[in-house]
């Protein structure tokens, strides 16, 4: 086979791979947008926020535009963590009056089997930088300057649930 023909074949394979990835993604997003056993359906790609077991909203990619971006360089790896404060995310769905300093907030990732519990006073304090960084794969990762959340092993990658408990 001539090289020109092989190059064309390689380009076709490349386009097929791109089509496969985007096609599977499109099918998944279509499936995810269907309501699952609840009256409330969340937009595809959103992260559900529960308060005392009740769904109060879903943080979606479109919400990102409403939030101010923040960043810090983590001490452990010197990596720039760039994203949105968890405080601002929560305040999009709940009035501040409903959150007491000792209100527990659990951020978890079912795929990673990881979660972390923080209270509102820790989250509210901007100096703690409790924030979501957008990972390279496009998922959200909870990072912070707090000692319990400042190392890679402590970060919660691929966040898919936020729960607000009762104080």
């Amino acid at each position: 086979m001539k090289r020109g023909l092989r190059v064309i074949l390689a380009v076709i394979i490349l386009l097929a791979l791109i089509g496969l990835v985007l096609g599977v993604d499109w099918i998944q997003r279509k499936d995810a947008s269907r309501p699952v056993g609840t009256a409330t359906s969340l937009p595809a790609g959103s992260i559900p926020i529960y308060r005392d077991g009740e769904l109060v909203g879903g943080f979606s990619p479109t919400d990102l535009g409403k939030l101010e971006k923040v960043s810090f360089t983590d001490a452990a790896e010197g990596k720039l963590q760039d994203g949105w404060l968890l405080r601002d995310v929560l305040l999009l769905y709940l009035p501040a009056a409903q959150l007491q300093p000792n209100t527990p907030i659990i951020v978890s990732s079912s795929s990673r089997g990881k979660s972390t519990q923080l209270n509102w006073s820790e989250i509210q304090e901007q100096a703690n930088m409790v924030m979501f960084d957008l990972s390279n794969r496009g998922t959200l990762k909870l990072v912070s300057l707090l000692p319990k959340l400042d190392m890679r092993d402590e970060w919660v990658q691929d966040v898919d649930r936020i729960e607000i408990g009762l104080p």
Partner: protein
Amino acid sequence: MKEHYFSTFQLILMALFAALIVVAKIALKLPLQLPGHSGMFWMAILVVSSRVIPKPGAASIVGLTSGLLAAFLGVGDFGALDTVLSYTMAGIGTDVTVLFLGSPENLFVATLAGIFGNLSKFLVKWGIGLVSGAPLGFVALGLARSLISYIVFGALGGLLGGLTLIALRKAGFFTYLEEKR
């Protein structure tokens, strides 16, 4: 005496290339905040390795070795399995492209080899995400962007590798290698 597929000299070169990939991953950080941008460095190294050690499988072994090294050093944010698999697949992607299209001293072939190598790495990460059930969540926001970014940086890495090979030929490196054989 039984002749081995790779000579000792070639094995040493492969180990050096593997170490270079890990060093590049750790030390050469661009403040780009774009997924797959490190591929610009290691696709260049993989493409160069596929020509300097002109045997099928060389880039794959360089990828596997660098993946094992990186896993032990804790490089990568999705665990050791992802690190080993993605580095190995980047090598296999480069190898298969070079095997199929010919010498990466041709800049177009080198660019395609870089694209396929970096895309293989992306496919491993995407596949692991699918299997592990990582949230669709914000992947929906970033998938197309990630894919384009991996392709662009893979292409740049491949091109860089191709240009390096041309420079090496001009410097007489391949004549030196022939003499070593």
